[in-house]
């Protein structure tokens, strides 16, 4: 292959490359007055806008339906997706998204019901939410589920607020939250947002939290420990029960980041590990689509000591069936209040429930087993070529560092970008922060053995290429994509965050 032709100027007269078609912004396809929706003009009526009518042009472009369909179809073709290939983004759990779930979420009885229509007209919605909560209670072993948080980070906020409420009820104001250095960024951000001082805990040589260091930091001012298990190195915290006991002995609560629940679902109940509170990313473990960055759902499982502080609304079993409690009075008197408009992400609830019902108790256990088996298979297939910071089996994801790239001139970033040219979405890079040049690979249970074998072969060949001194391939990668590496410094230095006609003209002139 001739490298020059790949990295040189684009050959076609259009800038298009076969199926990769350059696409202007909708604002650059405007024809004033054109419209992609046919609507009737209302019969004459007397406006009651009270002199507030909008004057002047808004600036929205006019396109027809075929132009809009083509525009967004072309944009879609510039995206990598689970539907197109292996997406081994560690900690993000990019598994197959069943289409049955999409179909069910679009039924009129789900999509076309309003959160504020009389509760008596939506018994099925309450039943669905209660059924989902029941499944999550059984799977976690926890007695209460808060459904309303909209994402994992929102669930963290919910959990930390519940902990704060419980401490206040005890008349205590504790100031510190212990967070391992390997934690997701949302953990320290959440703890800090809730007014706590974040106290980092180092990892030990085996990639687990340093228990002695942790116990030394426990004290009467510690509100909680926020721990991810399996942790972000893809390892199970084997001393978790002892850690939980120590946290409880200090009068603190044990928050678990449940981002990696997919590794243990059906095989381990978090309650049995001594966890008081854990968010569940329905868009990870239970396959609701990531959608290019949401919407998600971060339901929170709560121990009895925290369940009474669960956010509104509550669904409770009353004498005449399910009831929706929307006020912080009566049974919900100790609720921490409302975290989100309305009742939570119903569209995600139905998808997650369909996923769970499809797998059943047996299939969910199999999900965890296959996810862990696939990750260990990658680990075994690659450990001779890449460098492992920690020994032993992994859980649902495997962490490598950049030791194998030492003295090659190739970085983790370069290696990841080279994978893109081979048709793969890269692994998570430079996270967790506790190993150098981290590469965190999570295949999930929905990859076949053949798919893993192909990936192993590709990574091995790239590792060999790096060692052989083929640096240019890596540093210039990717070259086969709709765009090559983008200048992020320029984007941040002089931010252009919206389209403006005059700006485009000026840039073109320059």
């Amino acid at each position, binding site marked *: 292959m001739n490298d020059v032709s790949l990295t040189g100027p684009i050959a076609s007269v259009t800038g298009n490359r076969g199926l990769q078609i350059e696409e202007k912004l909708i604002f650059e396809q405007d024809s*004033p007055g054109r419209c992609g*929706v046919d*609507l009737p003009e*209302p019969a004459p009526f007397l*406006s*009651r806008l*009270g*002199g*507030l009518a909008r004057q002047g042009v*808004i600036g*929205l*472009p006019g396109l027809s339906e075929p132009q*809009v369909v083509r525009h967004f179809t072309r944009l879609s073709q*510039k995206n990598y*997706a689970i*539907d197109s290939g292996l997406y081994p983004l560690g900690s993000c759990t*990019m598994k197959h*998204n069943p289409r049955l779930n999409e179909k069910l979420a679009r039924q009129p*009885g789900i999509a*076309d019901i309003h*959160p504020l229509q009389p509760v008596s*007209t*939506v018994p099925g919605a309450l039943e669905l939410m209660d059924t989902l909560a029941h499944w999550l209670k*059984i799977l976690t072993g926890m007695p209460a589920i808060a459904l309303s948080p*909209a*994402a994992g980070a*929102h669930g*963290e906020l919910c959990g930390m607020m519940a902990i704060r409420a419980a401490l206040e009820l005890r008349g205590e104001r504790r100031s510190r939250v212990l967070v391992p250095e390997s934690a*997701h960024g*949302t953990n320290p951000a959440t703890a800090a947002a809730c007014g706590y001082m*974040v106290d980092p805990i180092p990892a030990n040589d085996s990639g687990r939290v340093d228990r002695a260091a942790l116990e030394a930091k426990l004290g009467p001012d510690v509100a909680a420990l926020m721990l991810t298990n399996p942790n972000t190195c893809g390892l199970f915290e084997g001393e978790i*029960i002892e850690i939980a006991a120590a946290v409880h002995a200090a009068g603190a609560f044990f928050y678990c980041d449940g981002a990696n629940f997919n590794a243990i679902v*059906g095989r381990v109940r978090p309650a049995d590990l001594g966890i008081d509170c854990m968010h569940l990313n329905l868009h990870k473990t239970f396959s609701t689509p*990531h*959608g*290019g960055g949401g919407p998600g759902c971060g339901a929170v499982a709560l121990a009895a000591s925290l369940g009474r502080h669960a956010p509104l609304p509550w669904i409770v079993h009353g004498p005449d069936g399910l009831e929706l409690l929307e006020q912080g009075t009566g049974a919900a008197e100790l609720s921490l*209040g*409302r975290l989100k408009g309305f009742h939570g992400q119903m569209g995600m609830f139905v998808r997650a429930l369909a996923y769970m019902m*499809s797998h*059943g108790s047996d*299939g969910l*256990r199999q999900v965890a087993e296959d996810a*862990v*088996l696939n990750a*260990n*298979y990658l680990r*075994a297939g690659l450990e001779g070529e890449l460098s492992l910071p920690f020994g032993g*089996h992994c859980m649902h994801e495997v962490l490598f560092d950049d030791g194998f790239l030492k003295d090659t001139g190739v970085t983790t970033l370069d290696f*990841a970008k080279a994978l893109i040219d081979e048709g793969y979405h890269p692994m998570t890079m430079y996270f967790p922060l506790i190993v150098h040049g981290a590469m965190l690979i999570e295949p999930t249970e*929905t990859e076949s*053995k053949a798919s893993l074998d192909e990936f192993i072969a590709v990574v091995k060949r790239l590792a060999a290429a790096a060692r052989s001194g083929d640096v240019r391939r890596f540093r*210039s990668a990717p070259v086969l*994509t709709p765009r*090559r*590496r*983008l*200048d*992020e410094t320029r984007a941040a230095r002089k*931010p252009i*965050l919206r389209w403006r006609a005059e700006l485009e003209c000026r840039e073109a002139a320059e």
Partner: protein
Amino acid sequence: MRYLPLTERDREEMLAALGAPSIDALFAEVPAAARLDGPVGLPRAKGEIEVERAISAMAARNVVAGSVPFFVGAGVYRHHIPAAVDHLIQRGEFLTSYTPYQPEISQGTLQYLFEFQTQVALLTGMEVANASLYDGATACVEAVMMANRVTGRRKAVLSGCLHPHYREVCETYARFLGFDLATQDPAPGDEDLGRLVDRGTSCVVVQNPDFYGEARDYSGLARVCHGAGALLVVVVTEILSLGAIRPPGEMGADIVAAEGQSLGNALNFGGPHVGLFAARDKFVRQMPGRLVGQTADLDGRRGWVLTLSTREQHIRREKATSNICTNSGLCALAFTIHLALLGEAGLVRLARLNHAAAVAVAERLERIPGVRLVNRAFFNEFTVRLPQPAADVVEALAQTRVLAGVPVSRFYPKRDGLADLLVLAATEMTTPEDIDRLEQGLREVLS
């Protein structure tokens, strides 16, 4: 199981390849006391037919908005969604991709988010918008927290005409995240919020049109805020209103927090929806959430990336402006596609249709003895005072399969003076027959 590609033979071969005697060996690190020996007490796996049947049975127990005369709004509105919207957002390349961390293979998501940011800025009349937040209520509280950061103050004044859920979310965050609120009592009508602004006030939060549907000019309030060094936050729960009424940006708003559900997104029993967030340029580095920026690639071609991420949790950790990670990408896409289809002409016409429908409903209800319209100016939603408790009226009408609106007492069950208030919305989906049924039903219940 249809979603799991590994066969029993694969599993055996793979275990052999990694030298593990059994799958249990891979879970050896789990303490013995916490290992489950077999499946938990839940039903076993089901085929597609059975799952569809079970969930559809639950769905069938609900009264579908489209099957009845429907006047429920109060923050979530039933609009027509063009067929192309749902078709396009279900393309797997949009549906099954992650946050665009690898821009070379995420230009599709990044470009539509850049278009989304531009549309939101244009609609609200603001200079800059982010790539979405969870929903309007959380966008509202993020706006308050941003105003606290910008001004270095910690007290927000909340209008009594703010959507009750938005107010409650602010109250929850204020209690646990440590800032102060001065909240006006909930009631329709004019307020003098300016007199509550002092040197400790970070912002005043108003809604336009407000929770009761009243549309107002907040230019005067903006001047008062700015004179005292405070910001004006304007909440919009019906984004379509900006196709008809003057945008917050023209009234002097510093931050706009809005709900974008009305464009492209179904009712969904309240979620997922999409939070919109726009502000003045000078505050951009204090904004929460993802931002997409324009740049160029190595060959000089225009492209887009996530930018200014030094504000965010994955870089800044405990010093981040917000803990938000996931937002509402796919709902933002639905918004962008719907608005691209409408364009300037379509949006303005759709807004006019909505206003016309609401005027038609108001004119009919005003004729009913004992029913009094509360509003002076409104868009597609207004409030009436009934001669008896609105909750009972709504329940009685629901029995006749008319969903007449939202009684204010649903949010404030114990508060005097609000029990008779009913908030009603009309949209382009409202038919003359629906209005006849509503008027007739209301006359019967009230007689």
